[in-house]
């Protein structure tokens, strides 16, 4: 059976009528229809996993783990498996994901399609760098296997390709060995943006995992004040004596939940600045290194189920962009000033240093700095502001992250993604009639010329 229903992703915007399929057998997971997109756990922000008026194939019941080699750390699974399920299997056996996005409730296929990055991008690159093979379902042509060496152009069009080269069916991944399920973390406060960039650039403060939180509402000489959070996988001797005998056991955490959509006015400049004051003060107090378990370090928001509901039923957008080095700090200062002066309340703003770009043709990361902010959709002028920000991002050679995007224009996309032409050539060869498509693909006109 199929279900015809309004569908939205994590940010609740846009909401579109789609025809949903939920296959339970691997061979039924195939785009052999006129207009279809695969959807994992719906954690992207926007229309990447929507297909208005078309078909959406949910991968959630195709979640079988097919290979796990605990000696070499190789895992192969169906695309619908969540990173959470993978972690439950691998952490007790001494392995971790090579790259972790901010939530573990994403599907393996979604992580590949978005070529997600994590706190270690500046050291280790993005998710796609650790994918050793993909099995892709093509319309009318069955399955094709690709890897960095076999059909490499299909592989690198698929990594970061937003699910548009075909349905990602199986993924093989190289894992990262860990000595414990804990991280040794440290916080460093900075009173403004310059201070924060100094911290990022300071080799003594650098660590395999770094990320900074920024208070978007402070301005003047406090513009860009924030906290840099760093960490590395804890070695056995860094753990408290009590847990050394069982280094891979995670403490049970009781997750909280936001039970209902909050009213639209709940987030306003006053409530957000009060939150930011309190959060800044609390985080900045943790000067000394401390031991955190993997879940609280990598996935702090996963402990609050349905946190998206604080933005109300109308939803929100996330604006994430990257600005290349050199010149990132000056550009970010300009962008932050625009955001701060617009008084669009942003709850969460995350700044992250990125390493060199990977090989994915439509992958987001590039050497520089990325900033992500959540913005409520209550303000009618929001999209105008974001269009202006797009211009600044393009001017500085940067780009917007498609997995977080619900509103970028087709023209701006072409200026941000110079390898689009190369990607389109592969797409046209694999799927000449563009049967695999999404609302995002139509909005960005991913079919017409570069």
């Amino acid at each position, binding site marked *: *059976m*199929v*279900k*015809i229903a309004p569908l939205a992703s994590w940010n609740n915007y846009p909401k579109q009528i789609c025809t*949903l399929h*939920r*296959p*339970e*057998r*691997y*061979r039924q997971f195939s785009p052999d229809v006129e207009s279809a997109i695969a959807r994992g756990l719906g954690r992207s922000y926007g229309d990447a996993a929507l297909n208005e008026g078309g078909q959406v194939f949910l991968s959630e*019941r195709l979640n*079988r*783990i*097919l*290979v*796990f080699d605990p000696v070499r750390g190789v895992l192969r699974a*169906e695309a619908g498996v969540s990173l959470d399920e993978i972690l439950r*299997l691998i952490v007790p056996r001494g392995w971790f994901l090579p790259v972790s996005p901010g939530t573990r409730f994403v599907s393996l296929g979604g992580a590949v399609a978005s070529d997600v990055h994590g706190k270690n991008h500046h050291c280790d690159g993005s998710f796609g760098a650790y994918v050793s093979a993909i099995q892709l379902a093509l319309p009318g042509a069955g399955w094709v296997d690709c890897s960095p060496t076999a059909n490499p152009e299909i592989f690198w069009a698929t990594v970061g390709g937003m699910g548009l080269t075909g349905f990602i069916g199986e993924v093989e991944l190289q894992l990262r060995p860990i000595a414990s399920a804990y991280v040794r973390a440290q916080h460093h406060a900075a009173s403004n943006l310059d201070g924060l960039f100094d911290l990022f650039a300071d080799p003594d403060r650098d660590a395999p995992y770094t990320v900074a939180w920024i208070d978007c509402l402070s301005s003047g000489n406090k513009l860009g004040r924030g906290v840099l959070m760093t960490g590395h996988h804890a070695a056995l001797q860094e753990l408290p004596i009590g847990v050394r005998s069982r280094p891979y056991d995670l403490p049970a955490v009781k997750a909280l939940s936001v039970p209902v959509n909050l009213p639209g006015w709940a987030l306003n400049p006053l409530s957000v600045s009060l939150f930011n004051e309190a959060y800044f003060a609390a985080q900045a107090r943790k000067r000394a290194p401390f031991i955190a378990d993997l879940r609280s370090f990598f996935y702090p928001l996963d402990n609050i189920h349905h946190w998206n509901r604080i933005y109300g039923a109308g939803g929100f957008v996330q604006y994430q962009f990257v600005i290349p080095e050199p010149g990132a700090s000056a550009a970010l200062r300009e962008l932050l000033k625009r955001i701060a002066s617009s008084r669009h309340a942003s709850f969460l703003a995350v700044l992250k240093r990125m390493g060199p770009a990977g090989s994915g043709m439509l992958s987001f990361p590039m050497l520089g700095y990325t900033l992500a902010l959540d913005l409520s959709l209550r303000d009618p002028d929001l999209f105008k502001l974001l269009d202006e920000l797009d211009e600044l991002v393009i001017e500085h050679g940067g780009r917007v992250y498609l997995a977080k995007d619900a509103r970028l224009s087709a023209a701006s996309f072409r200026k941000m993604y110079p390898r689009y032409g190369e990607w389109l050539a592969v797409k046209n060869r694999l799927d000449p009639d563009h049967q695999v498509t999404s609302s995002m693909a139509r909005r960005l006109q991913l079919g017409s010329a570069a």
Partner: protein
Amino acid sequence: MSGWVLLLGASSSIARATANAFAARGYKLCLAGRDVDELERDATDLRIRFDIETCHREFDADRMETHQPFFSEVQLLPGGIEGVVLAVGYLGDSRSSRNNPHLQRVLLTNFVGPAAILALCADYLEARRGGFIVGISSVAGDRGRQSNYVYGAAKGGLSIYLQGLRNRLFPSDVAVLDVKPGFVDTAMTYGLPGLFLVASPAYVGERIVRAVLSRRDVIYTPWFWRYIMLIIRNVPEKVFKRLRL
């Protein structure tokens, strides 16, 4: 916990969830069904996640001539079969199943085939003097309604059959559990209009394993279906025949 649990119709989502719940308790699992490619994936997944022994076999409840050779082979698994979960089922289209050949197919897959294979399982477990049989029936078998009485008749027949087996196997210490699921979120019900209080397969699977391990006779799952069906069974026929259900 020395023997294997044999799952018949193992690629259905309720069977998969039941397999997970058994696997989490360390049972060895033999998955049997028509779609061998799928069963191989499931068997591999269970082996990796739960570090248990698994195997898979081709089995078609509709082809009764294959039951004897099938069962003769699986009973040779080292340690033998300790329990059987029958999750074979076919809802069909309720309108077309009023007529041949759909009518025959619905009766065959939901009742005749299951009765035939369970007969072999019952003889085996009776001789082994222990173990269990689980049959997945349906609340639809509790009372005939115009919307799905063919399916309901087959499932009701299965429930009576399980009842008889329970009576017969009681002296041999073989537990027989009849599971009557209400609405479960499976491929069979996905997108059907008019469903309410739909349970997840994982919930149902866990309830099934708990019930069989505590040697229950009949369970409704989720539990409140016992009371819904209590009411439905007790509406006088004079009234019931006038309803549009």
